[in-house]
Structures are given as structure tokens and as C-alpha cells.
């Protein structure tokens, strides 16, 4: 039975449960002297019955989908001849894969082991039986749920409270997904990173000065695991982020000051959304622009004055990244500056200070914690930005402070190590996760710090 048909049947049962349950509640209510005699309104009775129908069924379905593949696999394996079962688990896994491919009609080898062919037929049969059992049990579950729902129905049933309880559970589940995401990130990155650190010592990774993950040509060669010193990679990240912040911090801050202190309402209403468009432009567009327009521009300008500029210079990537961050810095600074109470400004004007003196000596110092927090958030964004550097920065890990040379960044390395075919136990791919862990930790610290500062600052003036 196809999934579509099954879904349709389930939906039919659920809507039947709802409409019929509701109708049943109405008729019962009328027979005992008006529906106000019911504890809950008929709609809630209908909903409760529908939930009885779908929720247990859904649970069963989830459990089934989770365990079915492994159960079938183990059944297939146990039916194989003895000489296959005694194989080491990796080999057995490969054989199992062959069986599954055969079952799907894919045959990559010219000759097929008759044992495997038989196993694949067995596998297909098991799968078919599995689908049949699943469909039957789900429909039985749904009908049983309906019956239980109707059985529990009584005018005194607190249907509304039950329904609301279930909805509440759903809401709690929704808000927990964010937590699960964080746990998932931490676990997935940490788990692979630990496997990496079993091969490469943590000290070598954190303090090593050479990054060349691609050196292995033969698996058994000396030093085949490459060198994984993350310092040049982080150096490149810091260099590009610093250039970006040199562009974004003054521009964003001055834009915010001008917009909130000087600009007329009309200018503010047009200029602010226009600049915020920059924040909505996809980063891949910036990357393309940096690589196609800005990098050649900088290289030509450099050659004109006799400088040697790499075509993947840190300057081009940093410059464009800075422009991407401007609206971000601007919005946060704008918020923060607007939160400074007008009385502080008035006091300063009253003493005869000009507007710029007031801004420099009163507003900015008062808003400083918030601005610093915003800048920290911007730094964290610059460090984590991927597409611009992937497209406009280099791949070779140079430890340099010269913005005209090509450097690489953490995100670039993660992308280059993980794009394409991977085997999941080489230190090359695992290194990407170690970098990811570092990236996550660094940005997390920056974010926590920044959010804390901004929050503290807001409380000060509220």
C-alpha cells in the first residue's frame, strides 16, 4: 500500500472522528437538555476523538520507521550462510549494501553471487511484508483510537482540558526544538572533533604553524595525515575580519550617528531602509562581486603604484565583508544611540556644547557598552561569514599580516575539506569538524558576551 493512500485513509479517519464526535456530542447534549449540560463544547469532544485517532498512531509510525531498517537488516544477515556471518562487521556491512543495491535492481558487478541474489530477494520480501504489517497496524491503531475516543465520551468528560493539555505539550515540544538544535550542533561537532583529536594532538592543532591537510598521496606514507596547525587559518580569519571591521565600524557608527542625530525625518526614512538593503543581499552575491569586480580593481590599482597584489587578496574579501556588515553595525548602534535619554543631551546643550561635542563627549560614552556589544556581534558575524571568503579569498594558508597577500580562513577550509566525496575517518574531513568546533566556540563566546553587554546596557536606561 502506498504512503499516499495510507495518508489519505488516515486523514479520512481523523476527519470522520472529528465530525462524528462533534455530532455525537451535539445529539447527546440535546438529549440531556441542551449542550450547556456538557462540560466542554462539542468541538472539543470532536477534537479529542480526532487526537485519540491520530496521536497514538503517529507514535507507532515513528517507532516503526526508526527500528524497521535495522530489524530487516539483521534478519537478512541472520539468513546468510555461516561463512558470511563470521565476517568482520565492516565487510558484512559492505555485503549488506550489495544486497540492498541488488534489491533495488542495481547491479554494478558483472557476476552476481547467487547467495547475495537470494538474500536480496529475501530482503525484498521482508520489505514488502514490513510495508504490509505497517499499513495494517496503522489502520488498526487509528480505528482502535477512534473506538477508545468514543468509549470515553460522556457529557461530563473534560474534553477541553484534555485538548488544551495536548496543545500545551505540543507548544512545549516546539520550544524545546531550539534546545535540541544546540545540543545537536554541539554533539555532532564535538563527536567528530574528538575523533580528530585522537589522531592529531590538541596542542598540534591549536598551536601548529603549518596547515596543509592535502599532503597525503599514499595512505601508508610517512606524514600521510598532513599537518593540521590551525594558527595560519585563524590568522587569516582574524586578518580578514579586522579589515572588515575597519570598514564597517567607522562607517556603520557614523551612519548611525548621522541618521539619529542630524538627519531630518525624511532623509532617515529613505536612507535607513536603503542601507539595510545591503544586509538583505545574499552573501554569494557579495562573493561574486568581490571576486569579479573588486579583486581585479585592487590588483590593478596595486600594480599601478608598483605593489604586488595577489588576485585573491585579503583586502578584497575584507572590504566587501565590511560593507556587508555596515547595516548590521548601523542598526545596532542606531538602537543604542536612540536609547540614550534625551535629558543627557539637553544637559550638554544647556552647558553650551555643540552637537558634535555632545555626541562625542556625552552620547557615545553613554552608549559605549551597547556599541561595543554590537561590534562584538559584528565580529562574530565576520568570523562566521563563508561565501564571500570562499569565493574571494585564497586556499593556501599563509601566516601573514599583509592584506595584499592571499590568506585562507576557517570557513574556507571547512568548505574545501567537506565539499565533494569524503571518507568519514580521514583526518582531513575530521579536521573540518575540529575547525567547526573552534568556530562555534569562538562565535558562541563572542555572542554570549555581546548579548550580555547589550542586555545589561538596556537595563541601565530603562
Amino acid at each position, binding site marked *: 500500500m502506498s504512503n499516499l493512500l495510507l495518508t489519505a485513509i488516515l486523514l479520512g479517519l481523523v476527519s470522520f472522528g472529528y465530525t462524528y464526535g462533534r455530532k455525537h456530542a451535539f445529539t447527546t447534549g440535546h438529549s440531556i437538555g441542551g449542550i450547556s449540560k456538557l462540560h466542554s463544547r462539542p468541538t472539543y469532544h470532536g477534537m479529542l476523538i480526532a487526537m485519540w485517532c491520530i496521536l497514538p498512531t503517529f507514535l507507532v509510525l515513528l517507532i516503526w520507521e526508526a527500528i524497521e531498517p535495522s530489524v530487516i537488516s539483521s534478519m537478512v544477515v541472520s539468513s546468510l550462510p555461516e561463512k558470511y556471518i563470521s565476517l568482520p562487521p565492516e565487510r558484512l556491512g559492505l555485503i549488506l549494501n550489495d544486497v540492498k543495491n541488488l534489491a533495488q535492481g542495481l547491479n554494478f558487478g558483472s557476476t552476481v553471487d547467487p547467495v547475495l541474489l537470494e538474500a536480496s530477494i529475501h530482503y525484498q520480501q521482508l520489505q514488502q511484508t514490513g510495508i504490509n504489517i505497517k499499513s495494517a497496524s496503522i489502520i488498526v491503531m487509528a480505528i482502535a483510537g477512534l473506538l477508545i475516543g468514543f468509549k470515553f465520551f460522556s457529557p461530563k468528560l473534560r474534553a477541553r482540558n484534555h485538548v488544551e493539555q495536548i496543545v500545551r505539550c505540543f507548544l512545549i515540544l*516546539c520550544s524545546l526544538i531550539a534546545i535540541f538544535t544546540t545540543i545537536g550542533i554541539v554533539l*555532532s561537532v564535538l563527536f567528530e572533533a574528538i575523533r580528530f583529536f585522537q589522531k592529531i594532538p590538541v596542542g598540534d592543532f591549536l598551536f601548529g604553524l603549518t596547515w596543509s591537510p592535502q599532503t597525503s598521496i599514499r595512505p601508508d606514507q610517512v606524514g600521510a595525515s598532513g599537518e593540521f596547525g590551525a594558527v595560519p587559518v585563524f590568522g587569516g580569519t582574524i586578518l580578514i575580519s579586522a579589515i572588515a571591521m575597519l570598514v564597517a565600524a567607522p*562607517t556603520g557608527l557614523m551612519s548611525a550617528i548621522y*541618521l539619529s542625530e542630524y538627519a531630518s525625518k525624511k532623509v532617515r526614512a529613505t536612507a535607513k531602509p536603503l542601507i539595510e538593503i545591503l544586509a538583505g*543581499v*545574499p552573501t*554569494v*552575491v557579495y562573493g561574486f562581486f568581490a571576486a569579479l569586480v573588486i579583486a581585479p580593481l585592487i590588483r590593478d590599482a596595486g600594480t599601478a603604484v608598483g605593489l604586488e597584489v595577489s588576485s585573491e587578496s585579503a583586502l578584497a574579501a575584507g572590504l566587501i565583508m565590511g560593507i556587508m556588515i555596515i547595516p548590521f553595525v548601523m542598526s545596532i548602534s542606531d538602537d543604542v544611540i536612540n536609547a540614550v535619554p534625551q535629558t543627557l543631551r539637553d544637559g550638554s546643550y544647556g552647558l553650551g556644547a555643540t552637537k558634535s561635542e555632545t555626541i562625542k563627549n556625552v552620547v557615545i560614552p553613554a552608549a559605549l557598552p551597547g556599541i561595543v556589544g554590537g561590534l562584538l556581534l559584528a565580529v562574530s558575524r565576520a568570523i562566521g561569514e563563508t561565501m564571500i571568503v570562499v569565493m574571494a579569498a585564497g586556499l593556501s594558508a599563509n601566516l601573514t599580516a599583509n592584506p595584499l597577500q592571499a590568506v585562507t580562513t576557517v570557513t574556507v577550509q571547512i568548505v574545501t575539506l567537506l565539499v565533494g566525496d569524503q571518507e568519514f575517518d580521514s583526518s582531513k574531513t575530521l579536521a573540518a569538524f575540529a575547525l*567547526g568546533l573552534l568556530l562555534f566556540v569562538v562565535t558562541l563566546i563572542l555572542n554570549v558576551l555581546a*548579548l550580555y553587554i547589550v542586555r545589561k546596557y538596556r537595563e541601565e536606561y530603562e
Partner: protein
Amino acid sequence: MNNQKPMDIVQAGLAKRYKKEKRFKLIGLSAIIFSLMFLVFLFSSIFLNGYKAFYQAELRIDVFFDPALLDIKDPASANFDALVKKSLRTTFPDVKKRKEKKKLYGLVSTDGSFQLRDMVLADPALVGQNRSVWLLADDDVDMLMKGYIDRNLPQSDRRISDVQIGWIDKLIDAGRVKFRFNIGFFTNGDSREPESAGILGAAMGSFYMLAITLVLSFPIGIGAAIYLEEFAAKNRITDIIEVNINNLAAVPSIVFGLLGLAVFLNFFHLPRSAPLVGGLVLFLMTLPTIIITGRVALQSVPPSIREAALGVGASKMQAVLHHVLPLAMPGMLTGAIIGMARALGESAPLLMIGMVAFIVDIPAGITDPATALPVQIYLWADSPERAFVERTSAAIMVLLTFLVLMNGTAVYLRSKFERRW
């Protein structure tokens, strides 16, 4: 010095201070102008690079649908490539050398044979007849016609040789070259040949992904926002959830890609390169944004609404679901659309889960291999052909159009339904 009046000291410094004031204001203004100029620069350079991709050169070639070459019983598998070559040879009969012939064949796109095949499949009676057919020109011809290839360069420095330019000029003189609106760009999948590469495959991939993202993140985000804003007790756990959501919103997107790779691909063994996985990753990525905007929308509904509902006997759940939520809906929708727009432009996490493959077929479902629009842009940006630069810019224009539409809808919704209490 001391017998100067304070007013005099002030007066003396005043001019200088006003100058400083003016300078400061000017710096602020120039910061804004800098950002705006860059915006104009960015958009105009993308436009100038890309607008020519919307039309494309075609060559008119006289084709004799030779029955000797085309097996009438099975036209689908016939050698249409040879037909194209033969027609080119008849158009330029004086080309004899093998090397030159090869160059001649290079004038027409390799997809020209598919064009002829489609014609014959649509009308088998064509076989044995003479027809004058507009065939897609090769991308180098297209680039030459659009003026991107400099004729004055030495032959070795350009992708098109002197003989070829001579033939093209002949064709132009005979009125056999024209530009036509590039429909293929909107209806084709990816291709190695720039002239027949299109964005439909990537756009469909993006569409499936966004559909999954929306279906998951909107209800779940709203559910979480309602719980945290309306029901959750203010205690340590809710505090942790809140801080956690705020931090999650600032986690680099590539980390979500790592999560998707480790969890969805390696643990759950979902198919690689599938919009399903992309949608799941983007869902996790946009969820914090939607929760945060949803909470803001709920906060903006005044407490009096809740109190009135509770006062006439509604339960807490009824008050929230029947009265507060509908009033907060426009704000939540706006947040969701902005979140979707961001998800549409996102590419870094998709690189991690294998959505960067070269995929010609247009995906027909959420488990088919696919790319997304921004990833397609990334892939094309990496291609060396000049024609792909043009196409990349055109694809960017399409992507930006979608983003403008989405954000425009969000702004419109906000201005139309926003209520000040």
C-alpha cells in the same frame, strides 16, 4: 590672560568649534553616501554584467533532413549531430580541411542537434525535406556578437579564431544571425554549455527547500513563541531556552551545515544533495529568527485583550489562540517571510550537505538531487567561460528579484495590518 572675560574665550574658540561641528556632520553624511554609492555600484555592475544574458544569438542554417542519416523508424536515436555538421558543410562548401571543419562545427551549440531532434520528433514528416532552421549559436559566437570578445586582439588571445569570425561576418551579411529572447535560461537545467544552461533546476530546488522550511518552521516557530511568551513560567529553564535561542540566531550558518552533514546525512542516512535535507537545515537555521519575531509580535498585543477574554470566561488557551494570536498574526507572517527570504539567499550550509553537485535534471521531488539558486550562482561564478559571468549576473538578478518581492510583501503586510494600540 586672566582679565579676559569668559564670553571672549568662548567667542574666540567658537569659529573653530563650528568648523569641527561641520566636519563631524560631513563625516557622518559621507559615511551614508559611501554605503549608498556602494549599493548603486553593486546593483549597476551586476545589471550591466548580466542584462545581455536575457537574449542570445541564433544562426539560421539550411538543413536538409536527409533520410540517409535519419532512421525513420527510430528518429529518437538517429545521429542528429551528423545532420548539423552536414548542414554546416553545405552552408560553407569551401571548407575542406579537417581542422577548419572542426572550427566550423564549433559555431553552433552542441545542443543544436537536440533542437533538430525535437523538431523531427514533433513532426516526422520533416524527413526528406529542406528547412531553414534557427539554431542556437555557440557561447563564443554569442560573446563575439555581444562585443565581449575583442576582434582586434591577436588570434591566440581569444577563444574564437579569424576564420570563424570571417564565417560569422558572412552569416551576418546574409541576415542569418539574430538575437532572440533567451527562454532557455528560464526553462533549462544546468549545463556545461553556457548557451543552454538555465536556472529552472536550481529554482525548483530552492522552491522545494523553502516549502519544507516554511511548513516546518512556521508552525513550530509560532508554537515556541506562544509557549515562551504566554505560558512559560519565568524560571531558570525558560531563561536558558531564551538565551539559547538568541545565541542560535547568531551561530554562523556554516555550522548548521556541519550539523546537517553529521546528523541528517551520516546519522539518519537521508539522501545527499536532496532538497529535503536542505530544507531541514534551513528550518533549523530560520527557526530562531521566527521565534524571536513571533515573540515581538505577541508582545505588541496589549494585555487588555487577554484580560478581556479571560474576563468573559475564556480559558488561558482560548484567550491566546482565539484572540491574541490572530492579532499577532501579521507580525508573525512578516517575520516568517523575512526568515524565508534569508533562507532563500543562504548557500553556505547547502555546500556542506552536497547540494553543489552538477545536476542537469530538473528535480521532481524533495528527494531528488538538486541545487539551489544561490548555489547555482556559486557554481557558475567558478566557471571560466565569459558567458557564465553573464549568466551568473542574470541569475543574481533573478534571485534578487525574488528577494525584493518577498521583502516587499513583508513590508506591505506590515504597513497594512500593523496596528498601533
